[in-house]
């Protein structure tokens, strides 16, 4: 009879004489019997999905033989521990993930913006006037976005200070997202706080045409699927003028934001295990508004901003033989920002990135990864000031890195990962070594404990490299520990972390604004996450809470204190509900962030003023129907339906007025609410 190593009876196991048709299936009681031809020995094989094959050579001299077979459970995703410290994964591929890609799109308040949806996860601080990701007490530049492993230069569209930016990429492009809030793999670098890893979709399943009509614009796309390849092309245009004409804005727009662009996505399956991906997008956005002048904020002038951005990424992945996987990729980014407000600023940034990676899996318990990267970037800035003086500055930088990582599944219940990253930043002539370590233990049937520690470096930002080359990279040391329990439909996760920052860039006002790396800081806190998809029928909700204590001395800070993007408490409650009779999914998101500190130059103390607490209640609904006999989604969303009066502090003039006072204007959202409606139609190409 057949049993498992847990003493359970196995029904349906295949027990047979290897190399013949003779065999039987274990019945409801685990018993089997079969006859086979006479021979001295019989090679008995028993197999059952989810268990290791059983093999034994039996003496076939007797007329009948009784055989007790015990099958060992084999390692699989659900019973094997994985490292989860510092990472939130959203993917369709794996089962033990906390989010599905569709979750990102359907979260209210996000208006299908990737950063907006990620802001409802723990570890992020809501900084409403920015629109970018601020992770665990780190500044926005400390989070780096990677698409298929290659860094993206400008993942957000260009905006002016205090007008939120939006992520450039549609969440539908990605089959998997890993949002790492710290302690991420040695494969990635140049991000002090967090890495947002986006993995693009594989071959499109079928050909189709899609049309999107929105209150802010339209998009048209066509996907063609061939036997082993697919190509998707899309063009989009958006213009906020009609919307702003209807709804009162608190700012005056000369030209409401207008953008147009196109993208293509090509996939080719080069073999049964290989895939080539080439994708790119090109976009241009323009706006002109009445914007406060920096020197005297109560006076506004017309500001014109235009941005042109081109991005292309090609990568190839193939499995070689039994144990090797190869990845090579290259990307090219070119971004041009032009801003005029009496002055004329032109900033051009371009970069070429390349990466190769080899994965060796000698057996199912060990995998070894090695790889390297080479990035070449150019930065050029031309500034024509109000008096007509032209300043030009430019530089180029070569960044090289080598990384290795060993993932060792010590047992079903313990896994360890050790990695190293060595890199060189040409322009500051600096070598860094960043070791990283993480492990996880299974503490129970459905729960596990995970730990991560490592060093993270990031070269100084372009704004500083412009003026000074004798600088070091900024550095952060992470310590993270988490415990999570995942059951059918419910997830609970708690994570505690400590980050120590060293060598942060400082500007010394007493030394003619000299730049050096004298800054330091810390960020520590606890994040909680709870998700429940079963208690309420057709309902799905998650709660996330972050507690953060962070202080730093960097840039022009005279003392070590909490920077203005840090809030002590951040809460998000997300609820989604499907109503069958209406074919509609409704969503509601509530967010709260405790007050943040900002500086008033009129007072002697630094960062001693507080904003109001931030609150938002957003709503969305997706109605599935048919229009022109084609599958259609009607999507409606409204942010801040409760009409909270949020304020993000004050913006002060850089120069004092005649009374020696620095005047100020409040920083507020551009409008109290943002309402959006869109109709997405998918046309069947061949029917």
């Amino acid at each position, binding site marked *: 009879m057949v049993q498992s190593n847990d003493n359970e009876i196995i*029904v*349906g*196991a*295949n027990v*047979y004489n*290897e*190399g*013949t*048709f*003779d*065999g*039987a*299936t274990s*019945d*409801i009681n685990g018993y089997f019997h079969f006859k086979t031809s006479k021979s001295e020995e019989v090679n008995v094989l028993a*197999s059952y*999905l*989810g268990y290791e094959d059983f093999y034994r050579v039996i003496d076939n001299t007797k007329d009948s033989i009784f055989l007790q077979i015990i099958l060992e459970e084999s390692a699989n995703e659900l019973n094997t521990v994985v490292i989860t410290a510092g990472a939130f994964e959203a993917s*369709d591929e794996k089962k033990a993930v906390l989010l*599905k890609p*569709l979750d990102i799109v359907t979260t209210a308040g996000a208006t299908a913006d990737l950063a907006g949806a990620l802001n409802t996860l723990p570890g992020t601080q809501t900084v409403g006037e920015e629109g970018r990701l601020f992770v665990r007490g780190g500044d926005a530049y400390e989070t780096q976005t990677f698409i298929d492993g290659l860094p993206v230069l400008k993942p957000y569209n260009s905006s002016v200070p205090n007008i939120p930016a939006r992520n450039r990429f549609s969440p539908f492009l990605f089959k998997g997202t890993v949002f790492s809030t710290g302690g991420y793999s040695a494969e990635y670098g140049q991000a002090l706080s967090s890495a947002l890893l986006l993995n693009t979709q594989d071959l499109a*399943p*079928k050909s*189709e045409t899609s049309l999107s009509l929105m209150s802010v614009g339209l998009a048209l796309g066509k996907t063609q*699927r061939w*036997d082993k390849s697919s190509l998707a092309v899309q063009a989009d245009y958006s213009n906020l003028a009609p919307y702003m004409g209807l709804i009162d804005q608190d700012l005056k727009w000369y030209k409401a934001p207008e953008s147009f662009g196109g993208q293509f996505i090509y996939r080719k399956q080069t073999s*049964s295990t290989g895939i080539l991906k080439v994708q790119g997008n090109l976009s241009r956005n323009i706006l002109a508004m009445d914007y406060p002048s920096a020197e005297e904020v109560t006076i506004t002038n017309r500001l014109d901003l235009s941005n042109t951005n081109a991005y292309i990424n090609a990568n190839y992945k193939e499995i070689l033989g039994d144990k090797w996987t190869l990845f090579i990729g290259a990307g090219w980014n070119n971004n041009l920002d032009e801003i005029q407000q009496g002055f004329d600023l032109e900033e051009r940034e371009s970069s070429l990135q390349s990466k190769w990676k080899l994965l060796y899996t000698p057996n199912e318990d060990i995998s070894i990864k090695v790889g390297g990267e080479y990035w070449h970037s150019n930065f050029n800035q031309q500034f024509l000031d109000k008096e007509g003086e032209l300043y030009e500055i430019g530089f180029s930088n070569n960044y090289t890195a080598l990384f290795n990582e060993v993932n060792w599944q010590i047992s079903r219940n313990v896994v360890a990962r050790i990695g190293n990253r060595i890199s060189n930043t040409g322009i500051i002539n600096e070598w860094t070594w960043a070791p990283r370590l993480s492990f996880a233990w299974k503490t129970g049937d459905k729960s596990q404990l995970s730990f991560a520690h490592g060093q993270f470096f990031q070269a100084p930002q372009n704004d500083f490299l412009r003026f000074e080359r004798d600088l070091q990279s900024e550095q952060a040391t992470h310590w993270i520990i988490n415990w999570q329990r995942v059951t059918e439909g419910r997830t609970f996760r708690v994570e505690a972390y400590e980050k120590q920052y060293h060598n942060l860039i400082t500007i010394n006002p007493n030394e003619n604004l000299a730049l050096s790396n004298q800054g330091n800081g810390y960020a520590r806190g606890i994040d909680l996450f709870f998700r429940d998809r079963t208690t309420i029928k057709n309902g799905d909700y998650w709660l996330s809470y972050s507690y953060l204590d962070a202080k730093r001395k960097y840039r022009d800070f005279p003392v070590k204190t909490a920077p203005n993007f840090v809030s002590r408490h951040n809460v998000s409650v997300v609820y989604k509900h*499907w109503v*069958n009779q209406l*074919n509609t999914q409704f969503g509601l998101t509530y967010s709260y962030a405790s007050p943040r500190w900002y500086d008033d130059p009129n007072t002697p103390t630094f960062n001693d003023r507080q904003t109001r607490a931030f609150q938002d209640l957003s709503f969305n609904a997706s109605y*599935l*129907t*048919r229009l022109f*006999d*084609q*599958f*259609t989604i009607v999507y409606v969303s409204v942010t801040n339906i409760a009409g909270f009066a949020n304020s993000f502090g004050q913006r002060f003039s850089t120069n004092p007025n005649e009374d020696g006072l620095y005047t100020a204007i409040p920083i507020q959202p551009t409008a109290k609410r943002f309402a959006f409606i869109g109709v997405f139609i998918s046309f*069947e190409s*061949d029917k």
Partner: protein
Amino acid sequence: MKSIYYVGLFFFVAIFNLNAQQGKYQEAMKKSISELNEAKDIEALLTAANSFERISKVADKEWLPLYYQSFAQMQAAAGFMGSKQMDKCMQSVEKAQAVLKTALELAPNEAELYIMQAYVYQGYIWEDVQANGAKFTPMIFGVLERAIAMDADNPRAYLMKGQQTYFMPEFFGGGAKTALPLLEQAEEKYSKYTPASELHPNWGKDRAKALLAQARENN
């Protein structure tokens, strides 16, 4: 989306050539196919699946044993789902997919394998209709269209297409009305079809007839 997306056990009729056939392979296959035909419960289906697995290990260049093994596992999966044993159901679906993958490597241009792939994709939809419906439905039609491109006379492709359409929610383009022409097409193809050999798949005629009658009633 709680609309009924799946169907219970398939019924099919195999037509045997009763002339004696030489070769152990032919004999073993015929025996196992008849085991599969006569299977009335999950245990019998798994026994048939295992018989095909043993044959496939010996006759390792043939796609047919793997095809039937996959088919038997999918039938078992449907049975498990009927008795609400979702974890065992998904185990069978995973096994069916793994076996089908091997079969496709042996015979990448065989239409029947793409039709079976559509059935396996349906299995993944059973796991979580909300999360997987939108992903796998286009894949099901994609793979059936490839099957039709390879063999326009194969009735099972039209049956699967019609069945999938019949049980899909209306806003996805499904329902009795849109399914009707597809099912009529399936019946027509069945009436003209003869399999390449007595071992080749020949199931679904009764199912097509039954579904067509249902579709006509609900129109």
